[in-house]
């Protein structure tokens, strides 16, 4: 069953650019980016038990760094990408030092406060970030001389990135280190008694999640060729968190499914109504109240309840 699903996914993914129009190819690229982002957040939320409401920081900062390096400081794309990722990882390492002084709700509040500070900076430091106007006129890189300007080329690029990200994160959580991470999530004291260092395990995971958040940010800025402070906003963090929880946190593929649904909903809804934030809020209420364990388990539960009722 699993293999059939995988083969089906592979077939669709490979054939899509040949059969679908540009709109759908672009949509698929966006889905891959959102999926990488949600998967990286899931390392914290699902496997580490650390609910972060500031994950947009890594996406936004990597995107801003790349935009600033290429436009303002005249770096090439390769160097700019390297600097952005290094900068984002360094920031994650620093934020981890602060946020991991607390756990649970304290952790959530600190990550939220830190990301709001960055959002405020992006708005206020208009001398550097252009404030509310954002930074426009960006270009996509051309790795090995292959231009990524066409939708299909960018599709292959982001598909490749998503596959690498998925494999790398799967290896991360299925490794011995991943087991110790789940141990720290469930029984931190017992793990400490066994000689593990829960803080260090959480911190490494935090930095690793920041790294993949940064990769998602690079792809995001390459795709949009534009960056605005909203990508650092709580809404942006909340969308990713909704994807993780809707898909089922702590599962491997769930967040990718959840992120896909959130993105489709956002694209579909914004064609009809302007009120994305309100819809996002309502979906949050709905998911938490009706399907707190995620859509797939939630639907199963709902179905079994409906089956049982007639008897």
């Amino acid at each position, binding site marked *: 069953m699993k293999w059939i699903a995988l083969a089906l996914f592979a077939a669709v993914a490979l054939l899509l650019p040949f059969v679908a129009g540009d709109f759908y190819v672009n949509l698929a690229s966006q889905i891959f980016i959102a999926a990488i982002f949600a998967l990286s957040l899931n390392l914290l939320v699902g496997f580490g038990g650390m*609910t972060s409401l500031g994950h947009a920081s890594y996406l936004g900062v990597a995107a801003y760094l790349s935009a600033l390096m290429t436009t303002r400081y005249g770096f090439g794309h390769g160097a700019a990408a390297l600097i952005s990722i290094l900068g984002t990882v360094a920031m994650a390492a620093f934020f981890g030092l602060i946020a991991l002084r*607390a756990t649970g*709700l304290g952790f959530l509040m*600190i990550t939220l406060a830190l990301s709001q*500070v960055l959002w405020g900076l992006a708005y206020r430091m208009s001398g550097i970030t252009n404030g509310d106007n954002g930074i426009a006129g960006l270009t996509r890189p051309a790795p090995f001389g292959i231009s990524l300007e066409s939708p299909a080329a960018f599709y292959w690029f982001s598909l490749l990135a998503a596959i690498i990200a998925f494999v790398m994160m799967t290896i991360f959580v299925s490794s011995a280190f991943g087991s110790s991470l789940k141990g720290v999530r469930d029984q931190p004291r017992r793990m400490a008694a066994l000689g593990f260092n829960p803080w260090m395990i959480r911190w490494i995971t935090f930095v690793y999640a920041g790294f993949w958040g940064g990769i998602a940010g690079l792809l995001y800025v390459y795709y949009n060729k534009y960056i605005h402070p909203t990508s650092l906003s709580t809404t942006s963090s909340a969308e990713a968190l909704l994807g993780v929880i809707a898909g089922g946190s702590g599962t491997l593929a769930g967040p990718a499914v959840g992120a896909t649904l959130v993105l489709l909903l956002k694209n579909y809804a914004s064609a009809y109504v302007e009120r994305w934030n309100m819809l996002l809020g309502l979906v*949050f209420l709905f998911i*938490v*109240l009706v399907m707190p364990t995620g859509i797939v388990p939630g639907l199963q539960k709902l179905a079994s309840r409906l089956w049982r009722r007639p008897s």
Partner: protein
Amino acid sequence: MQFWIIQGLNSLSLGGLLFLLSSGFSLIFGLMRLANLTHGAFFMLGTYFGAIALRDYSGLNLWVTAIGAGIIVAALGGLFERLVLTRLKTNPLGQVLVTLGMAFIISDACLVLWGGDSIPVPTPHNLQAPTRLFGFVFPTYRLVLVAIAIATAIGLYILIDRTRLGAMIRAGVDDRQMARAVGIPVSRLFTIVFCLGAGIAGAAGVLGGPILSAYPGLDADMLPLALIVVILGGIGSLFGAFIGSFIIGFIYTFGTVLFPELAYIILFLPMIFVIAFRPQGLFGRLGT
């Protein structure tokens, strides 16, 4: 000298406003172990109610409007607590997420109802004339705001420390299970405290109106300030929220004046400092 005194007063009034905002947040967190992310939205809702009421009905004054907005926001908060939060008693993460969802809904609803332009809240007529004190000129309204914050702090202190209701709330904060076992209706206390916190935030929104005015995104500006105040002062501690508010009031005001582009970074330096050396906050008793 003039500069320092005037900015010092601005810091005090911002600190007072921050206390009105964060005291409710801190109360709710202390009793319910709930990070109420709707708090900034409650504040903004209050500001909009005030701005609209004072614009459309000329007979109202600011104080009546503040009390009225406080009551309306408290009622909305109570409904939200009864209808949604109580269903999620066993799911603390879910509670935080619905308060976030609610914050999105409220802020977007304000945008739909009242548009994207900022709406000013007029300063009361009898407070528009500046006050002269020791040869310096002060905006009277800001002085009154500080007085209101101090009065609220004293009022809350008396409520929490000297009344039967306060004793029950303190019992609930210290040991919820035990409080239930001796017959304290903890879940009704939750509703009361949530209404109280939301109501103070709503009234604070109106009182802050003459300084801030109502604009979209006010909630997103205020929520991090409240978070930083309570993280600094100690989550769940009223005294911590009081001290934290004035510290942040000073840092934010002087930061904005002296280093306008870096105000946000300066703002979170004390937070980092406190978290590094005292993760429970300056006056916090609860582990986070």
